[in-house]
């Protein structure tokens, strides 16, 4: 049972480059989320998806793009990375009813130089 995985775990990229962070879950959860964690801010929602082909903006969506062509995958793309996007990124998933518990991936530490 792989659960929810993220790749890569660590990434260093240069300002202006495009980078994609991958998220994969094996539970067939309907909902998936992307959060970023910054010192002094806790976790903030970037984008979320209620199902395949349905996505919506969160609190801090600027500079990010998401897609969800398959239920199990929810990639996050930084179209032109900036230093302010240096952060730890967490993907999460949850079922659409019941406990509403969100299960988090291990996180990706992204550094933009």
């Amino acid at each position, binding site marked *: 049972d792989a659960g929810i995985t993220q790749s890569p775990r660590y990434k260093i990229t240069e300002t202006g480059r495009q980078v994609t962070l991958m998220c994969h879950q094996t539970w067939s959860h309907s909902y998936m989320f992307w959060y970023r964690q910054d010192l002094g801010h*806790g*976790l903030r929602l970037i984008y979320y998806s209620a199902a395949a082909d349905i996505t919506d903006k*969160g609190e801090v969506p600027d500079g990010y793009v998401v897609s969800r062509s398959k239920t199990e995958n929810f990639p996050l793309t930084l179209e032109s990375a900036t230093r302010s996007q240096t952060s730890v990124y*967490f993907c*999460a998933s949850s079922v659409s*009813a019941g406990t509403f*518990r969100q299960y988090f991936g291990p996180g990706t530490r992204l550094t933009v130089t």
Partner: protein
Amino acid sequence: AQTVTQSQPEMSVQEAETVTLSCTYDTSENNYYLFWYKQPPSRQMILVIRQEAYKQQNATENRFSVNFQKAAKSFSLKISDSQLGDTAMYFCAFMKFTQGGSEKLVFGKGTKLTVNP
């Protein structure tokens, strides 16, 4: 919009003692959920405990319990018999209830807890 405030950036406790982490929130919603997540140095986000707003009884999970005061919009976490493995960042989080399904989590900024031997 909902906000979550954790007023204690850092706390420390001696092993085997009890510690309480504070959390307050602001919302106009009547139905919602509250969570405490633990983030150890491994960075993994681990659910510690969950409380439904419609339940008056405080949630408990082994050594972890909450004091949920709905009118005061307060949701504190009590850790009894603290263990070295409890050393971590603790995040309080809010989720509003919707019939349609899951909703986003709104997090506080976290409290760094250190358990000393």
